[in-house]
């Protein structure tokens, strides 16, 4: 539960999950362990039934998987009952081939629990909307706008869901893995009818690069 400041030696001695590095380090590589038994996870599962889908802990950081439908309820509970008043950050990860394509990630801090932090993960499929937590923490407003802008995940019930970092009228969502890293033709953004979806080189063009 506790977020350790310096982990290395305390990391669980599980087998390294990574491919074998060139020069193997002396200390074993950290690996995730199940954290369903953590008091917080147990309390959350009891208070909001059906919210917790799984929990794991890695390098002292707990990650709880939350069911999308129960997200707002779980967040309310964490904020009001478990004193996680501070939404540190929110972002998303694009897993391209995975079943729910995106993970929307939140991490929360409680000022009453020392250095304890908890990370929530919500799986969201492409085209699906994620419930907004902007009603729970004001600060989620811009963070969700950013995720919307860069990943194209829409947030249901968000008060002001507009693009924030790219401009209005921009086509595509830059942080998706299939967005070309060299960017798209600006014209594509301005004249979407003249350019393919996503802009830039056509999907079968060999100049079009995607990030693995």
């Amino acid at each position: 539960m506790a977020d350790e400041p310096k982990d290395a030696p305390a990391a669980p001695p599980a087998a390294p999950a990574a491919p074998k590095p060139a020069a193997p380090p002396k200390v074993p590589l950290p690996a995730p362990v199940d954290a369903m038994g953590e008091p917080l996870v147990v309390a959350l599962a009891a208070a909001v039934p059906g919210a917790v889908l799984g929990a794991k802990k890695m390098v002292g950081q707990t990650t709880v998987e939350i069911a999308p439908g129960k997200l707002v309820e779980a967040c309310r509970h964490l904020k009001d009952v478990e004193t996680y008043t501070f939404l540190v950050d929110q972002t998303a990860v694009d897993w391209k081939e995975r079943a729910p394509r995106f993970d929307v990630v939140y991490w929360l801090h409680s000022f009453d629990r020392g250095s304890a932090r908890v990370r929530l993960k919500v799986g969201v499929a492409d085209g699906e909307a994620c419930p907004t937590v902007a009603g729970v923490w004001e600060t989620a407003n811009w963070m969700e706008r950013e995720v919307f802008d860069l990943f194209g995940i829409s947030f249901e019930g968000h008060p002001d869901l507009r693009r924030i970092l790219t401009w209005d009228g921009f086509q595509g969502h830059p942080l998706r893995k299939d967005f070309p890293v060299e960017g798209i033709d600006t014209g594509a953004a301005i004249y979407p009818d003249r350019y393919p979806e996503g802009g830039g080189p056509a999907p079968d063009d060999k100049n079009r690069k995607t990030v693995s």
Partner: protein
Amino acid sequence: MSELVGTAGAVPESEETMLGLREMELNFGPQHPSTHGVLRIVLKVDGERIVSARPDVGYLHRGTEKLFETETYPMVIPHTDRLDYVAAATNNHAYVLAVEKLLGVEVPKRAQYIRVVLDEMQRISSHLLWLATAAIDLGAITPFFYTFREREVILDLFEDYCGARLTLNCMRVGGLQEELTPGWIEKLRAFTEDLGAKIDEYEDLLTENRIWKMRTIGVGILNTERCIEWGVTGPPLRAAGFAWDVRRALPYECYPELDFEIPTGKNADTYDRYLVRVAELRQSRRILLQCCDWLAANPTGDIRGKVPRVIKPPVGDVYASVESPKGELGFYLVSNGGNKPYRLRVRPPSFINLQALPEMARGHMVSDLVAIIGTIDIVLGEVDR
């Protein structure tokens, strides 16, 4: 084409007032002397009083987080310099901390101390830059030159150490690249000892200045609850009276061994944020002196931990944060076991603190908006990434 009109189009039409007068829409930025970069704020003003303020960011968006995904772990470090470009060392630091955490690497003590020295020098230089620009925003032009005199020395020291003055690229996963140059610690100590008197000079110009107090006291109040609600960290949060500092709350490197205090304010206004930052200058000076002592007493030692030649952290994710001059700066690293980050998210304190601007500015005058932007201390490189 119509959607290109920009976010100003999204601002609802001004309401008619009783006399049939309409509020004026004022486009504050992106080219404006006191938005500290390309920040645009769409203001609705009633005379000079602000009815609503809507920050419009993104003019400096360079897709840094996308770039991260195409670079190997060591290659990411120079990109982090360009986030908060006036505090490159803390950016480097937060990133390497995240990678080290996931790798499980222990950083040698000497490297930790040198990192803290770089961090604190960076904090001083960033706060000096803040003081300079915040004073200019309120019309006091002289502190600018005083603070830049000291900032110059810090930049010279950085140049001495790593060859760069602004984009330092000074930290490596597992430690540092370079040992300190000979005589560097002495130069740093001479500067640091001198700094106390220099800070007094700035305070002489501003702290008890009647006009400065008139312009800053009671302006842009954001109390602790609202700060936390908005996720505001760093000096604005501490000025609200809440002693929360990542260096103490989530200690990293050798900070638990160092003796320093967290300055806090009472009134959560611009003046308190000014006082907090000035007090932080003094605290950073105190930390630097302690580090100088330690480094002088331990002149040799490893500066690089045991790091594999090719950095391939295990599959998993990790978040690590430092107290940057602007607030909590965090890096969220998702690794798929490859030699490039699968996803690297920056928690940009400037971006998140800026979000509270409309609440701080509401009901104040246009002149106060300038003071409030100045007091949040944003760097657009970090806001827009």
